[in-house]
């Protein structure tokens, strides 16, 4: 089971509290995890990644296991701790704005 922590506003938009837990079929990558998030919560489509380019929104970052994965290839396998569910994938909103 993959654990994903969404930022406050996206939890509200998806009407969830706490972590999201997902089954991911096949290789566990940023792309496959986010595909699974968007499949379960279609209202999040376009809020983490651009609808067309699938690029990460500029003010969001992806962290896991104390590493910043934001600039990794979306098809690179995620760390084993995330795959096994010991650690969550964190979707983080930049600390910016008012």
């Amino acid at each position, binding site marked *: 089971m993959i654990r994903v922590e969404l930022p406050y*506003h996206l939890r509200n938009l998806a009407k969830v509290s706490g972590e999201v837990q997902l089954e991911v079929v096949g290789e566990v990558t940023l792309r496959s995890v986010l595909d699974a998030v968007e499949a379960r919560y279609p*209202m999040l489509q*376009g*809020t983490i990644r651009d609808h067309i380019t699938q690029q990460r929104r500029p003010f*969001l970052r992806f962290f896991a296991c104390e590493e910043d994965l934001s600039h990794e290839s979306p098809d690179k396998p995620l760390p084993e701790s995330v795959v096994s569910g010991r650690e969550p994938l964190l979707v983080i909103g930049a600390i910016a704005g008012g």
Partner: protein
Amino acid sequence: MSGVRVLVGTRKGAFILTSDGKREKWEVNGPHFAGWEMYHLKGSPLDPNRIYASQSSGWFGQTMQRSSDGGKTWETIGNKFVYDGVPGTHQWYDGTPHPWEFKRVWHLEPSLTDPDTVYAGVEDAAIFKTTDGGQTWNEMPGLRQHGTGPKWQPGAGGMCLHTIILDPSNPERIYIAISAAGAFRTDDGGVTWKPINKGLSSQYIPDPNAEVGHCVHHIAMNPNRPGVLFMQKHWDVMRSDDGGDQWREVSGNLPTDFGFAIDVNSNEPETIYVVPIKSDSEHFVHEAKLRVFRSRSGGNEWEPLTKGLPQENCYVNVLRDAMAVDKLDRCGVYFGTSGGQVYCSNDDGDSWNPIVRDLPAVLSVEVQTLA
């Protein structure tokens, strides 16, 4: 008994203000979508409980909401706004070509004939349409592709399509306005469009009388007199009596004719309201006084309306979509400020009272007149 429901979009959420027909005591509900920028909310004229809302964020982009119960509950609807074909370029601030990029929805205009059909004005400027209640949105590409698009440029707030007016007497006719391109009209339901900017003069563009490039801030029309349009341009208050084919200035004795908001009394089509703003360098009201100016002669002769409004130490702005009128008699006039106040007049503007004083900065105000 009749009543009103005021839909307020702010920088940090939406609020719904309700009252009976007297418009003296108010119930305040919200914030809905707390923390999000709510550029605009508007209800269907056919089904007032059907409300559409534009919700956006610098972090998470554009999302869209729909209510079927007058704003008590909401459901997320489609947020995929993709330009038709290869988007091409418009002018950037420095005059260089810049590709069209979708940023947000500024204005929603529900159809007069179908509650599932809505028009959306977006930044970068284009008009989209849904016919399935907001699940899917498709561009009406004839506007952006009619030929002058490469000459359009953003105003300080971005290159936004902020005004959509549907003509109740002619379902094929739609007016729109863009900062900074100007006003446009279609007479065939949105297939083809033409600029309607004759008579506008703007000193901040190389040819002050150019076909496009004018920073139109807002246009208003009394639905009982389609074809008579009132415009607050960047500077200048303008009027057209022929559907925008020709404009003339009606700023008259206004203390300053810079501003954003403009609206027309529902019962008196020659009674119009503006809120003069000091200048485009200082986006707050003139002389530190919050004054609505009313003309009862369709422009040129204006009187300040001050009763109930702060007349000293006031430095707020009133944005382009932040003024609305109800359909009661006497006409209710509403506006919201950058300081978070929403004011109501239940007597054509003669006197004003704050409904709320301390909301986040107000982006838009719409009012529904309920049976």
